């Protein structure tokens, strides 16, 4: 209940109305990102509520993926990438000195644009994260984690009898759900999704969207998407990025039906992008 304190926060920011019941899981304060000399993100302020789906939308190159990758410090491995400002996860700055990136990424999982199962069995794909973080004490523990994660990712029924088959042999949609199961297995608090459906057909997409909707009960989900329909369907919050600026952020419904900024309106109605 002590978390409820956070909910009283900001009315001051324009276009920013926070759902009353959810505290902020991730807060970004004046985040600047540079690739070499080029500035990719300009002074981003964004508070992301927990147990909701927040969609990041905007035209290609607007910085939405860059922002997503800041949240679990995946940009660390990119040469010449520099992040300034403050990103807090549960009130702790993840860019502070002494933060263990390994631990951070265990708390903030990620699902990528193209399904990228490892060339291992389905079981080993899911067991990979728990194994490196030492989450399972015995084989039985591991079995439980793997089966649970597959179940939560809605894949168990389809693969129960072939857990030893290679993960790469699944269909695209199944592979993506396997990647979600793999991320869940580490028991993260936040799941980042970078256009998780862009490589999938409509039926597989529908399944993933349904899954995302269920997952928000237990996880905070932040997803980048190119599909405005998808953002409208699955997210509660939407942030619109344009040319490195966060143009508008608010309830998804508001962004799509009553955008305050001209650029947002132009984008959601399909005039730019």
């Amino acid at each position, binding site marked *: 209940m002590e978390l409820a304190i956070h909910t009283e926060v900001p009315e001051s920011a324009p276009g920013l109305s926070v759902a009353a019941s959810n505290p902020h899981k991730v807060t970004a304060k004046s985040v600047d990102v540079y690739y070499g000399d080029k500035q990719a993100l300009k002074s981003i302020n964004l508070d992301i509520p927990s147990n909701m789906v927040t969609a990041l939308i905007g035209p290609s190159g607007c910085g939405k993926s860059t922002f997503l990758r800041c949240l*679990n410090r*995946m940009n660390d*491995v990119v040469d010449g990438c520099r992040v300034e400002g403050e990103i807090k996860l549960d009130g702790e700055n993840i860019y502070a000195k002494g933060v263990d*990136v*390994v*631990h*951070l*990424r*265990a708390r903030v*999982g*990620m699902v*990528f644009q*193209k399904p*990228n*199962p*490892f*060339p*291992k069995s389905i079981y080993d794909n899911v067991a*990979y*994260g728990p194994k*490196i*973080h030492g989450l399972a004490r015995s084989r039985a523990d591991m079995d439980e984690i793997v089966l649970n994660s597959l179940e939560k990712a809605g894949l168990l029924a389809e693969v129960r009898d072939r857990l030893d088959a290679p993960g*790469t042999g699944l269909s695209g949609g199944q592979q993506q759900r396997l*990647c979600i199961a*793999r*991320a869940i297995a*580490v028991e993260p608090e936040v799941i980042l999704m970078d256009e998780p459906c862009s490589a999938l057909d409509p039926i597989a997409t529908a399944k993933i969207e349904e899954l995302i909707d269920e997952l928000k009960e237990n996880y905070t989900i932040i997803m980048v998407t190119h599909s405005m329909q998808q953002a409208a369907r699955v997210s509660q919050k939407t942030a619109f990025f344009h040319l490195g600026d966060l143009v508008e952020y608010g309830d998804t419904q508001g962004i799509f039906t009553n955008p305050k900024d001209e650029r947002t309106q132009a984008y959601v109605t399909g005039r730019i992008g």
Partner: protein
Amino acid sequence: MYVTPARRAKKAVEAVIKGILITSSTVAILTTVGIVASLLFEAMRFFGEIPFVDFMFGTEWSPQTAIREDQVGASGSFGAVPLFAGTLLISAIALAVAAPVGLFAAIFLAEYAHPKLRNWVKPILEILAGIPTVVYGFFAALVVAPWLRGTGEVAGFDVSSESALAAGLVMGVMIIPLISSLSDDVINAVPQSMRDGSFGLGATKSETIRQVIIPAALPGIMGGMLLAASRAIGETMIVVMAAGLAANLTANPLQAVTTVTVQIVTLLTGDQEFDSAKTLAAFALGLMLFVTTLVLNVVALHIVNKYREQYD
């Protein structure tokens, strides 16, 4: 359609070009067929004189057939086992040196080295591949072998002045660039998305390399190793200079051994008559060597190709 002289000339040029190309490839193919056929027929002649089983399973090799009929040991014995054993011993030593060094160098270059460093180191490593084998040969015979012998004496081992170890070590250095460059290629071919996936789960760099990248690249790495092995088995110059001529059947790397290639060289250098079992034995050995490396190459290429398809 109408036909003009110009059109006909074009067609003629096409025909000539096609003819040249076909001839060139035919020459290459016929040469190969010719060599294989001569190997086969001469080997058949050899097996007409020496039973195949004696050759394949005999453990004594002393092909020094006589110049005079009544000379001692005039019959010669053609058991090829010591030669193949020597070849395998030296190749195994070479791979034991080159496999880890080459692989680790490749991992360093592909995963850890800064691009600038990589641009420097890779060409330097590839210079190793450009050194003529004869240079490696006298390096092995004049530097490594005496050094091993000296060190062995100090440590109380009896190292012969021409040893499998010396030849194997130097041959290992020779095939390092082969392994490192092939491994480097397959490691680079592992998609970045695999690394991202692993890092995204909180894996460290070495965990990612050990548990994702190497398993993913393993078939390709194995293919590279097999190609290196076939190179080692067929290598001649280093072993001629450093491994010795005595056909010892031994597993002791400190002793002199001989290899298939060395024996072919000694059988055929100098003036020879081409109807004695001694010279014909070279063809039989050559055929065996050819078959072995061919099989290794085919298997290796198959593995490498299969691996390439995996991510396309």
